[in-house]
């Protein structure tokens, strides 16, 4: 089996029924997708498969042989964050961070399919994602900002300062 993961053509050795989540985390060492509930209910493992957000924990890897998979690692880097990552940073949309990867991948897919800053539409698009810190208001603000195409100077925002202090570790 083969997958294109974050733009890199990758041969997959895991068994055909291995979940995409386990392939990414265990075989490829890509750890942004989180193993939360591992039954499709929490959203933390969400990645983009051929343009659509998918629960990697529910996806047998053989069912997407040949697909293009994008994770947070493929969105941007700490030095060159993608707009959705900048928006999450600027709006303090991450607290403990466990749900953040899934939230951002769902948000990216929502924006890619033409989603607007309408909060009701964002709630519908992110309805399968649970934040146990209950930071939903900030998350909605961030997705709306990214959908609008807001630009941020993270060096002068509080969140940006915090990022710098952490050495860019997100």
């Amino acid at each position, binding site marked *: 089996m083969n997958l294109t993961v974050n733009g890199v053509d990758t041969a997959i050795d895991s*068994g*055909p*029924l291995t*979940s995409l989540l386990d392939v990414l985390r265990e075989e490829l060492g890509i750890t942004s997708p989180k193993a939360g509930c*591992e*039954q*499709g*209910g*929490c*959203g933390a493992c*969400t990645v983009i498969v051929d343009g*659509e*957000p*998918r*629960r990697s*924990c*529910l*996806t*047998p890897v*053989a*069912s*997407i*042989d040949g697909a293009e998979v994008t994770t947070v690692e493929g969105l941007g880097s700490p030095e060159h964050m993608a707009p959705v990552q900048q928006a999450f940073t600027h709006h303090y949309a991450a607290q403990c961070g466990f749900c953040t990867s899934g939230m951002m991948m*769902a948000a990216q897919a929502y924006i890619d399919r033409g989603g607007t800053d309408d909060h009701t539409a964002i709630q*519908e*698009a*992110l*309805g*399968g*994602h*649970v934040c146990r810190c209950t930071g939903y208001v900030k998350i909605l603000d961030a997705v709306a900002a990214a959908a609008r195409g807001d630009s941020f100077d993270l060096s002068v925002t509080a969140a940006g300062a915090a990022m710098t202090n952490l050495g860019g570790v997100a």
Partner: protein
Amino acid sequence: MPPEVLVPSSPDEAVALFGDGTGTTVIGGGTVVLPNITYGRLKPGRVLLLSQAGLDGVTVDGDTIMLGATTPIDALLGLEDQVSALAACARNLADYEVRGQGTVGGNLCVGAGYEAPRGDLQGCLLALDARVRSAGADGEQSEPIEDFLAHRRDRLVLDVSFRRPAASAFAALEYPHTHEYTVLAVTGARDADGTTRLAVTGVAGPGARLRSAEALASDPEAAGAAAPGDVTFADDALASAWYRGQVLPVLVRRVLTQLEESA
């Protein structure tokens, strides 16, 4: 021993590989089966993965609507103008990602859930008087969905078809919960001659017709009161049998009222 995994690339190949189904686990979208494997509840020996089998697609031919077995749930949202209750039922199911992955056939074939009901579409497709075409022992069969649900899981679903009703309506118990299961939902469908069918999802076992309520369809209050007598309720993590029994009459009344208003 690792399971044998078969990935057919056409409907005919899927039917041939399924055979009489003995010892074969079918994976449509994987939303139900894969967690069972992950959690060790299921150790399949032989797996038929339908992702490439070409069994998906929605076909509208005159008054007949056909849903291929591996049609993802989110494709049903596009049937809003054809049969609004089915679109509403699909929209009520889980979330954006799961709707994109779970399949119509899988939703018909799931067994009892773990402390939660399953088979969100079953009540709706019962109310639509759908027929299920399937393959397995004794070859291909087409039968009413009610008969299929009585012996489900033994056969490979190929497609589900139904005639567009004159009117349809859907009502679900709104229940805030982390996981968006269908706790209890009622669908009604009315033909041009006034025949009304009502069915429920979220009771013990698969979806069920509400025949006593159907017989009283012209009187929503009486139909609602009669409906609990048609089914058996179960306790689970989402609601008690008692609570479901209290809510079912309300949902039946709402559906019948919606049908009246859309006439």
